[in-house]
């Protein structure tokens, strides 16, 4: 592990990670907008969260500060909890509507 640790990521700047994470985040956002399957939407949200995680870790490395990584743990925990609850809701919804297409949930409006 030490080898990796001590190697300079030559040529890779913080901007690279920023760009990567923004791209992933945007892909996640795109997914939320264009998909209608509830389960896929949950996945897209996870993708967004992971983009954030990646960014945090990159910054953590950039500052040499462990706080960023610790934050990622909490995000992971929360993500797990969210997925659990989300899936529970999804199951209830599926039992009720027999579909996971979110467009059927449009009874509440106006």
């Amino acid at each position: 592990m030490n080898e990796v640790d001590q190697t300079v990521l030559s040529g890779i700047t913080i901007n690279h990670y920023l760009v990567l994470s923004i791209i992933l985040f945007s892909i996640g956002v795109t997914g939320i907008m264009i998909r209608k399957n509830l389960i896929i939407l949950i996945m897209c949200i996870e993708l967004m969260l992971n983009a954030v995680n990646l960014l945090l870790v990159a910054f953590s490395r950039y500052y040499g500060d462990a706080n960023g990584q610790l934050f990622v743990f909490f995000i992971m925990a929360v993500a797990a909890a969210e997925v659990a609850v989300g899936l529970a809701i999804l199951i209830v919804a599926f039992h009720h509507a027999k579909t996971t297409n979110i467009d059927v949930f449009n009874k509440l409006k106006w």
Partner: protein
Amino acid sequence: MTGNTLIGLTPLLPLLGFIILILAGRRLPEGVASLIGCGTILVSFLFSILLFNSIRTSGQEEFQYFNWISVDTFKVPFSLIADPLTSLMMLVITGVGFLIHVYSIGYMHGDEGYNRFFAYLNLFVFFMLLLVMGSNYLILFIGWEGVGLSSYLLIGFWYKNTDYNNAAKKAFVMNRIGDLGLIIGMFLIFIHYGTLQIAEVNATALQNSTTGIHPNLTWITLCLFIGAIGKSAQIPLHTWLPDAMAGPTPVSALIHAATMVTAGIYLIARNNILFSLSPFISEVVMTIGVASSLMAALIALKQNDIKKVLAYSTISQLGLMFVAVGNHSYSAGLFHMMTHAFFKALLFLGAGSVIHALHGEQDIRNMGGLRKLLPITSLTFLLGALAISGLPPFSGFFSKDEILMNLFTTNKLIWVLASISSMLTAFYMFRLVFLTFWGKLRKPVDHIHESPLTITMPLILLAALATFGGFLNFPQVFGGQQKLHEFLLPVFTESSKILPLNELSHSEELMTMGIAILLAIGAIGLAYNYFISKIDVNKLLAVPRGFVQNVLSQKFYVDQIYEAVVTQPLQKISGFLYRVIDVRWIDGIVNDYGFIVRESSSKFRFIQSGLITQYILSMIIGIIGVLIASKFFSA
């Protein structure tokens, strides 16, 4: 009793009578009611005589009840004044008033509103006394409006009848137009003289006149004159008076002949200094006066209602009085006012007696030959007609002659017109007399009999006054002593200094008299010719033919013009304002706000479509918007 207290008490008595009568209502038997009604006026009359005596020695008395209004510099005490002018008016009002009250006992007998009638009459006398006794314009104005109110109440006395009510309303509203003029006059007076005390105003005006005439005096006098026009039924506000004949005849006699309508004359006489200082308005007064006089006389030619004839004759006579005061011969005007009160009251009461005898018939086309059936009435009526026609030695002759005589020196044209008007007067009065009392009854009525004593007594007394009243101011040319003129002199001294009247030579004076007498006799002869001796009376009374007759019988179409120019447009505009401007526009705009909110609510609700996809999209667009905006604003 001092003069002071008398001043305070005199108007209160009729008020007391009014209060008692109106509160007691129908519970009071007729006898008691008439006792109260006439009694209070009689006592007032006696007080007036006492006051008259005390004035003759002291000249002027004042009495203040309390301080009425006091704001800033605007201070108006509730105070009354008695000077010769007032005293004369008071005597006429209470004296003639008393006679008419007595007359009403008989005339109104059995009417269900008997008590109310006396109450209103008393109220009228109260206000009329306030009018003439007020020491400042505002008290005068109380009386001014108050008599209008009494007039309204009495014209519409028989309130079941819609026409009568309309007449009453018309009278009130037209009076109000004049009143507005008076109010504005008061404002102007207050602005320029800082007070509303009549005496102070006139005195200040006199002082100012030494430095040059105040330009606003024209406006002030014009406004006052507008007030006078309204009250005295001159052109163009004259149309209410003939309609006002809807009231019971004693009302017509008291209010619409003897007293109230002369308030305009009183107003100008009271402000004689102001008017003397503004010659232009005096010209206007004369012009309006003579025009009204002529026009009314012309209209009276074709009227068939006995009271309407008398009403137009009143307008005509009032016009003559305006000519007099406009000519600055104030005492002559007042003299005529007094004699007119006598003979016109007499004529009206006589007419009332006729109507009473004929059970309400007022159309002279249906009368005739009443001379024998109603001897006292017809005799007194004839005396009155002779007086108004200006035949010596009846009172009308002296008073009218004095006016014409003074005119002769100042304005020949108006003298000619006034003479024509008085000639017409003689003609239509005798047309009336002949058609009513001569010939034979054209529409038989049962049970015609002479009126009771309460009716004939006042007639006789008034006939006496009408006959001999002229001697109060017996012309000097006949070696007489102008008592009235002298009595009134203190009031008019200052104004006569401003514009001294040319003294007529005796020959000229006799000449004018002669012309007047000749004209009157000629007119009477003509009337005799037309209505007794010559042609078929019925034909004359038939439907009017030709342009002139139509114009005359339609009263110069004034009512119709007013209807078309004022009343109808006002109604139309009001309706437009209400239905279109108010409801549709102003309120509509207000309501539109609510509508817009509701509409936008039902339109904008589509952003809350219920679709998660859309929500997400909208939110992200929102985020983008916020980011861009923050970027934009932070730069």
